[in-house]
């Protein structure tokens, strides 16, 4: 419990900043919605000018972009990107922080098992992520209601918003295992940006093919599918959970056997 509380306190500031950033982002994007929906035909014509590949890569669905949920799902790609960086950062710093800041000697010579240390840290980070998501969703719904032109399905809006949490969880788990496998991570932010953008780019390229969608967590949730079916694609949801569980198990096994060297 003491580790959990300490870690929670340590993440507090960055959690507030990331949450704030996500909210600012959604306000900025959504505030453009009224003007876009007013001149939706012009806008659609403009978008149709783009080659289909580009539209797919950017996640633009011309048919639905005029609706609030359609527009939201388009801009949500960037919200997810931002959230993914937050989650990856958390995941990577969890175990690398101790080694980089040379506090591993302090923590690991205390009468606690490594499993307990890692699980307390993970729980603290998950709490931060949950906090971010709850505050974000409340803010996003408020903004959506403020800018709506006609009524929209709150259910679909929530389904889309929830994918932020799922993507974050996947990124978080991947981040943990990266940090546990690498002996020493010098700079968390450059590594996490690198990994997240790699996934993001793969996601853009992979958008064209159904099979390649499996390669990037950014493409596990197809927003037009969510809007049409009011649900998620099970195969991708299961794959995401599988990835999370696998990364976590791997991380615990490796972390327990890891040698902590002097720096």
């Amino acid at each position, binding site marked *: 419990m003491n580790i959990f509380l300490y870690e929670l306190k340590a993440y507090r500031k960055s959690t507030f900043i990331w949450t704030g950033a996500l909210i600012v982002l959604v306000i900025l994007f959504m505030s453009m919605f009224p003007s876009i929906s007013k001149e939706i035909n012009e806008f659609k014509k403009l978008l149709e000018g783009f080659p289909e590949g580009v539209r797919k890569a950017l996640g633009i669905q011309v048919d639905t972009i005029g609706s609030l949920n359609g527009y939201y799902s388009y801009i949500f790609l960037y919200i997810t990107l931002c959230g993914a960086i937050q989650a990856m950062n958390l995941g990577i710093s969890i175990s690398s922080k101790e080694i980089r800041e040379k*506090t591993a000697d302090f923590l690991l*010579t*205390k*009468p*606690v098992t490594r499993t307990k240390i890692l699980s307390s840290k993970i729980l603290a980070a998950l709490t931060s992520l949950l906090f971010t998501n709850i505050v974000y969703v409340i803010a996003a719904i408020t903004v959506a209601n403020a800018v709506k032109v006609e009524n929209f399905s709150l259910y679909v809006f929530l389904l889309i918003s929830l994918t932020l949490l799922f993507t974050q969880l996947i990124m978080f788990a991947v981040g943990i295992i990266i940090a546990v496998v690498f002996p020493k991570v010098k700079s968390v932010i450059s590594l996490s940006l690198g990994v997240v953008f790699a996934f993001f780019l793969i996601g853009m390229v992979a958008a064209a093919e159904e099979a390649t969608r499996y390669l990037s967590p950014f493409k596990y949730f197809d927003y037009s599918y969510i809007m049409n079916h009011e649900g998620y694609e099970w195969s991708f949801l299961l794959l995401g959970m599988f990835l999370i569980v696998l990364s976590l198990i791997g991380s615990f096994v490796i972390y327990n056997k890891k*040698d902590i060297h*002097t720096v």
Partner: protein
Amino acid sequence: MNIIEINELTKTYGKSRGITDISFQVKEGEIFGFIGPNGAGKSTTIRTLLSLIHPTSGSAKIFGKDCIESAPEIAKEVGYLPSEVFYYDNMKVMDLLKYSSSFYNKDCTKRIKELAEVLNLDLTKKIDDLSLGNKKKVGIIQGLLHEPKLIILDEPTSGLDPLMQQKFFELLQAENKKGATILFSSHILSEVQRLCDRVAIIKEGKIVQVEKISTLKENNHKKFKLEMKSSVDQSYFELEGVSNLEVNQNHVSFLFRGNINTVMKKIANIQIANLWIEEPDLEEIFMHYYEKEA
């Protein structure tokens, strides 16, 4: 009773460094020195004892329990002070020490205040703003606040001024009197000489010798220096127990270990101008061990 029992402990890192077949025991109530030059494997051994590093082969026991399997249980009664202390920067000294004591299910506030007073440390400062020596003090308090039965120190004195070192040693001796066993690793011989009962000497990952300090210092070796009236052949002094023999015209010096009468008889047979017999300091013995191995 043995507090620490190390059995053929081996740790290899790829090709280089590491330790090979380290074995020694530390008895209850002892202050045990662990000396060797930098990179000899002192830290590797200690980090294995603390289960920060997993051994390639062999095992180590603390309080009779395997130090990897029972690590959390052992850690309750172990205080550790690393050579380089770096604690969560964005914290006040008191907060860190409270965080540290929260792991032991004891209220250590009184003890923290006592120790801080002895060491002259301001508990309200941020760790970030502390000098190296003061950070070290935080480390010392952190290692002692739960009154551990075993104190493990890895080159603990760097950064402390002589006065603080003195206070620190007094603290350790007081803990030792209360029953704590101490494993003290260092490359500075004088401090080991001052504090420890027994030492293990480690070189290139292997234990060269485990010996009582008193045996090392007094009984074993005498340092002879002679000035002779006429030169004598070097072979004259090549007795059993003589080492580091140096003959420079009429001056002869050597270390001797064994029955002193045999040397005295030898010396009585030649004409000498002057004679010095000294206790070698640990440094010389230590160098001597190294040279013999090299």
